[in-house]
C-alpha cells in the first residue's frame, strides 16, 4: 500500500487531479461561506449581466449570480455522484459475488440480464430509468446508480471467478472454512483495489450523466442549482449571453477531469503492470 501511494505521488497528473477533488469537496462543504450571494436571489434588472466586479462570472436569465450557483452546484454534483456510486458498488458487489460464487442457474440468469442491460446504449438506459421514476434529484441518483450496477456486477463476477480458482482459496476451503468466511476473508478484500479504481472512474461518469439528464430536463429540477440544468437554461440565451451556458459547463469538465485523473493514477499505482497502458 505504501508502494502504491509513492507511485501515485510521483504521477504529477494524478496529484493535480487529487488536489482538484479536494478543492471540489471543500467548495461543496463550505458553499454557504464561499458563495458571495444567495444562489436563488433574483435581480431582474441585472439579468444576463456580463462577468464583472459585482458578479465575477456574470448573472443568468433571472439575474442570479452564476458564481454562487456554480459553487452550490458542486453540492448536487458530488452528492448525486457519491450516492449513485454507492448504489452501483453495493448492488454490483452483491449481485456479482452471488453470480460468481454460487454459479449455476443463478449465475447464468443474472449474467443474461446484465448482458441485456449492457446492450443498451448508456444514456438510453439512464433515460429509460429516469423516465420510469420521474425527474428530481433523488430519482436521478437512483437512475445513475442503477445504470452502474450491471457493469460493476460483471467486473466483480469476473474477479470472484478468477479468485475462486486460486490455490489459497482452495486451501482455505480444504481446511474446512465455511463458504461465507472464505468470501469475506479471502475473496472480497482482493477485489477492493480494482473496485476503488472503477468507482473513481465511475464517479466521473456519474457527474457527466447527472449533468446530461438535468440538461435534457429529466434530472434535477429548477430552482436547484445543478450544473447541467444551468447549461440548459443558458442555452436559450446562448446567442445574446454565451457566458450563462458556458461557465457552468466548465465546472462540469473540471470536476469530471479531476476524477478521471485520480482514477487513472490509482489504476497505474495499484497495478504497476498496466503502467504506460491506456
Amino acid at each position: 500500500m505504501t508502494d502504491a501511494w509513492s507511485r501515485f505521488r510521483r504521477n504529477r497528473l494524478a496529484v493535480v487531479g487529487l488536489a482538484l477533488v479536494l478543492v471540489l469537496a471543500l467548495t461543496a462543504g463550505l458553499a454557504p461561506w464561499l458563495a458571495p450571494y444567495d444562489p436563488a436571489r433574483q435581480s431582474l434588472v441585472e439579468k444576463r449581466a456580463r462577468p464583472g466586479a459585482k458578479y465575477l462570472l456574470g448573472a443568468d436569465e433571472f439575474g442570479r449570480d452564476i458564481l454562487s450557483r456554480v459553487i452550490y452546484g458542486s453540492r448536487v454534483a458530488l452528492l448525486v455522484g457519491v450516492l449513485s456510486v454507492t448504489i452501483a458498488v453495493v448492488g454490483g458487489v452483491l449481485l456479482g459475488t452471488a453470480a460468481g460464487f454460487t454459479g449455476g442457474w443463478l449465475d447464468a440468469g443474472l449474467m443474461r440480464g446484465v448482458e441485456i442491460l449492457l446492450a443498451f446504449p448508456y444514456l438510453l438506459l439512464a433515460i429509460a430509468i429516469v423516465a420510469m421514476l420521474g425527474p428530481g434529484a433523488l430519482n436521478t441518483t437512483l437512475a445513475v446508480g442503477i445504470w452502474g450496477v450491471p457493469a460493476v456486477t460483471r467486473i466483480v463476477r469476473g474477479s470472484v471467478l478468477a479468485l475462486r480458482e486460486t490455490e489459497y482459496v482452495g486451501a482455505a476451503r480444504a481446511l474446512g472454512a465455511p463458504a461465507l468466511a472464505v468470501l469475506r476473508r479471502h475473496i472480497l478484500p482482493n477485489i477492493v483495489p480494482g473496485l476503488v479504481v472503477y468507482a473513481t472512474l465511475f464517479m466521473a461518469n456519474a457527474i457527466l450523466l447527472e449533468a446530461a439528464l438535468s440538461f435534457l430536463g429529466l434530472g434535477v429540477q429548477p430552482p436547484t442549482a445543478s450544473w447541467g440544468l444551468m447549461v440548459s437554461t443558458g442555452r436559450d440565451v446562448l446567442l445574446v449571453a454565451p457566458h450563462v451556458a458556458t461557465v457552468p459547463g466548465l465546472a462540469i469538465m473540471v470536476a469530471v477531469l479531476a476524477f478521471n485523473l485520480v482514477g487513472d493514477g490509482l489504476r497505474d499505482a495499484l497495478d504497476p503492470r498496466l503502467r504506460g497502458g491506456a
Partner: protein
Amino acid sequence: MLTFVVRRLLLAVPVLLGVVFVVMLTIDLLPGDAVTLMLGEHATKDAVAALRAHLGLDKPFLVRYVDYVGRVARGDLGRSIQQNRPVAAELADAWPATLELTAAALLLAAAAGIGAGVLSAVRPNSAFDGVARVASLFGLSMPIFWTGLVLIVVFSLWLNWLPVGGAGSPAHLVLPAVTLALPSVAMIARMTRSAVLDVLREDYVRTARAKGVGEWWVLLKHALRNAFIPIITLLGLQSGQLMGGAVLTETVFAWPGLGRLMVKAIFARDYVLLQGAVLVFALAFVVVNLLVDLSYGVLDPRVARQG
C-alpha cells in the same frame, strides 16, 4: 462463416426480446398516464376507460407484451399517441438523420483517434504523445452538450462560419458531427496507443525489424494489422456511446433525428413512439456489433476457422 452469421443473428433475438420487455415494463410503471395526458385532468371515468380499452391498456402486462412482440414481428409498430401516425412512419422520417450524424461522427472519430493513437505509440513519451494524452483526458471529461454549445459560440456566433442548428446541407453536419465525435476520438486514441504499443513489443515485430524490414512496413503490415482487433471491438462499443450521445447532440443542434424524437416522446408520455425508438436504437447496436464480429473473421483468419 455462414453458420457463424446465422448463430450470431439467432443470439440477437433474446437480446431484442429482453430490450422490449425492459422498455415496456419501464413504461408500464411510468407515473404519468398517457390517457390522462391525452384527455386532460377533467375527463370522465368512462371516457378514460374507453380510450384505455381502445389502446389495449386494460389488458395485463404479459398479454400486451406478447401482443406487441407478435405485431412487431409482422412489422407493425403501432400508432403514435400524439400524432396518431404509424410509429414506423415517424421512425422512418427520423432515422436517416441519426444515421448520417452517427456515421459521420464514427468516421471522424476513427480517423482522428487511430491517427493520433498510432503517432503516440510510434514515439511514446514524445511531446506529441504528451499533448495527445492530456488532450484525450480533456476529451473524455467534456460534457457533450456543453462542447456543442461552445462550438456554436465560437464557429457560429463569433466567426460566423457555420449554421447554429438544423439540418439540410453539409455545413449543418460539421458541428454536430465534431461534437459527437470528440469523446470517441479520445477513447479510440487511448486504446489505439496501448494496442499498438503492445504489438510493437512482440517477438514477430523484433524478427521483422531484424530481417531489415523498413519501419513503416513493420508498422503497417505487422503492428496495425494485429492491433486492429481491439480497436474494432472498441469501435463497436463506441457506436453505442454515439447513439446515446446523439440524443444530446440532436437536442443541442435541433437535428431532426431519432434522439430528439425520443426525448419528445418521453415528455409527451407517448409510450408507443418511445418503444419504437428504443427498439430501433437497440437493433442498430446489435447490427453494428454483428458487423464487428464479422470483421474479426476478415482481419484474423483464425477466428473465421473456429466459426
